[in-house]
């Protein structure tokens, strides 16, 4: 029901906004005093509350980084948990300032939905998970013809699934739920044989099942799922702030600036580090962007660099233990690459 409510509210909001939209998103956020961030309702490694009720994950950390860039304080952020169906309407209607919810970047979303994706915070791909105990002998997705497949509605996953089975001339029975928790519960209860979503998600979800060791993730990756934050179209300044927050996280890792050494790094002799950290004389990099000149210092103080964010949430420092893989920096053979901050 909630997505309809948001749909109607969205429609209503679109109707009533009249000409109130003259202020920029940055001004609105500053006036509110906090950043409103749309996240997942609960996906380990990306956005999930921990045992103390604090949100943890790459997606929520990214929002904290943006809040740090804007306010100099990574805690000035409020989270709106959104289902896959609700997310775009929530962003379009202005309910959230930024959508950081493991969302796949596609051309349709970039154009027809009125969104702008700022970058790829996690390169993912869709995979399949099965219960190996119940289905011994299945070790490839190509053996899944006739299976019941649990999937979340309104996702690119749902579309890739249809394409993959059609391309391989296999049959399947989709069991489509709106909420992630409902999909998890149905798969755990044995309503379907296969769970499909982004592979990183499968590793996170496996941890929440009643007996994680019984489940295996099949080797096939059937799609490209570049996950990243998105903002509304039509506000270039806000788009740039969010985009360059992402690049700053990457640049910090590339230069070896970490949460622990950021204060020391300020006095570094390396002109590039000084420039990035806003220590260059008469620098205008930060103010031209619309934030303070020590914005990168604030970001790194709040969440660390991209590598730290990755390891803490999904990498070796987390229960998910996902390898950096293609999410490594370009200098280490990965795809993460930031244009120069100068």
């Amino acid at each position, binding site marked *: 029901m909630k997505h309809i409510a948001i*749909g109607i509210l969205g429609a209503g909001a679109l109707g009533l906004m009249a000409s109130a939209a003259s202020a920029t998103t940055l001004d609105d956020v500053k006036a509110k005093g906090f950043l409103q961030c749309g996240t997942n309702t609960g996906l380990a490694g990306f956005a999930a509350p921990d045992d103390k009720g604090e949100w943890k994950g790459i997606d929520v950390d990214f929002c904290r980084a943006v809040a740090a860039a804007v306010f100099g304080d990574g805690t000035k952020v409020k989270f709106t948990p959104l289902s896959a169906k609700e997310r775009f309407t929530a962003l379009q209607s202005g309910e959230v300032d930024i959508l950081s919810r493991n969302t796949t970047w596609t051309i349709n979303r970039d154009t027809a939905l009125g969104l702008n994706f700022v970058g790829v915070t996690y390169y993912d791909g869709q995979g399949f998970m099965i219960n190996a105990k119940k289905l011994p002998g299945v070790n490839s997705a190509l053996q899944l013809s006739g299976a019941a497949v649990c999937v979340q509605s309104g996702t690119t996953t749902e579309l890739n699934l249809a394409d993959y089975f059609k391309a391989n001339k296999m049959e399947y029975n989709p069991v489509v739920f709106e909420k992630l928790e409902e999909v998890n519960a149905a798969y755990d209860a044995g309503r379907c044989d296969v769970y499909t979503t982004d592979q990183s998600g499968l590793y996170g979800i496996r941890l929440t099942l009643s007996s994680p060791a019984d489940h295996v993730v099949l080797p096939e990756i059937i799609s490209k799922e570049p996950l990243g934050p998105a903002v509304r179209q039509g506000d270039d300044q806000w788009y740039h702030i969010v985009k360059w927050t992402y690049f700053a996280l990457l640049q910090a890792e590339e230069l070896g600036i970490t949460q622990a050494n950021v204060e020391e790094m300020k006095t570094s002799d390396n002109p590039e580090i000084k420039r990035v950290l806003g220590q260059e004389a008469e620098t205008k990099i930060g103010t031209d962007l619309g934030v303070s000149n020590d914005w990168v210092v604030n970001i790194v103080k709040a969440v660390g660099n991209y590598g730290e964010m990755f390891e803490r949430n999904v990498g070796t420092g987390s229960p998910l233990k996902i390898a950096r893989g293609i999410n490594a920096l370009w200098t280490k053979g990965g795809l993460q690459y930031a244009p120069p901050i100068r």
Partner: protein
Amino acid sequence: MASQEVLREEPSRGSFINDPKVRGYVFQVVVVILLVAGVWWVVDNVIENLQRLHISSGFGYLKSRAGFDISVSAIPYTSDSTYGRAILVGLINTLIVAVAGIITATIIGFIVGIGRLSRNWLIRKICMVYVEIFRNIPPLLVIFFWYSGVLAVLPVVRESIGLPFGSFLNQRGFYLPRAIWGDGSWLIFVALLVGIAMAWFVARTARQRQMATGQQFPVFWTSLALIVGLPVLAYALSGFPLTFDFPKQSTFNLTGGFHIGPEFLSLYLALSCYTASFIAEIVRAGILGVSKGQSEAAGALGLRPGSILRLVVVPQAMRIVIPPLTSQYLNLTKNSSLAIAIAYPDLTATAGTVLNQTGQAVENVLIMMLVYLIISLLTSAVMNVVNARMALVER
């Protein structure tokens, strides 16, 4: 009337401003203008804001390829079908569960409602407990009760419960043999239609004869013989053309046969049980609304309790029952949108998916609201016709 007399006593003081009739018209015109202006303002703003936010609008997307699959579909549908067809599939699924639910809820509701007035203490109390339980639990919880509490604890596919006639029951739903109609099976359907027509004719003739002569005719047994007997005869004559496709075990699921998923079953059972508790109370109220003298008079004429109920009390109670019954039918249809919680692809679920894949929230919500409105208005219209036929004919 009083105001008119006052007017006559005080003929207009020259000014039409004080004329209540003129004033009435003026106020109505003003309200209409305000309403139209308000609607126009909202619509105009929506269009303008959608354009400003670079969100595509219009209904052209309904003709694009959907790209997603739907698990339950009464009409042919693949991922190559259009968004419009996906919404249609959802609409048909909504109608199927609503119609099935309405029929079952009415039957259970009448039995329980009459049972609550039974002279038997046990029946009375059982019916009361039923009503009090289902009436006081939100429908979503009743759906979860059936989905997670009853159907999910059924055995896994490999340990399906075998039922008579080669059907199976397991966690994934109910599997029945599917009938495959061979050559000449059209004769069976024709025989069935002929049987129904003849039964109707027999019932009408019998009623006319009873009105004229008072003699009764065993209508029920004759009708049963006609409706069942003729098709069976046709089946034999056409050389037994009917074969069955039985569900079989495959790697993952039972394949073949006819499959009813646990999503449909739990939604259907939950809506039926939930609405039946309300219908039972409406029926009880209707029966209690018929004066006691009516059944006493019928008893004095020598009618048995069953006949009193069927011939005297229920027909009169129906006049009280039908108007609130309509509301319950509408509630059931609208509550079917709770299907979204358990993966049954009804209108809300499929249109919601379309909404998300296309991002066109305004158009999709509009379509959903319009469709539910039309379904409800049609239900009301049908029930109004039924009500008019049941109403007391004044002579």
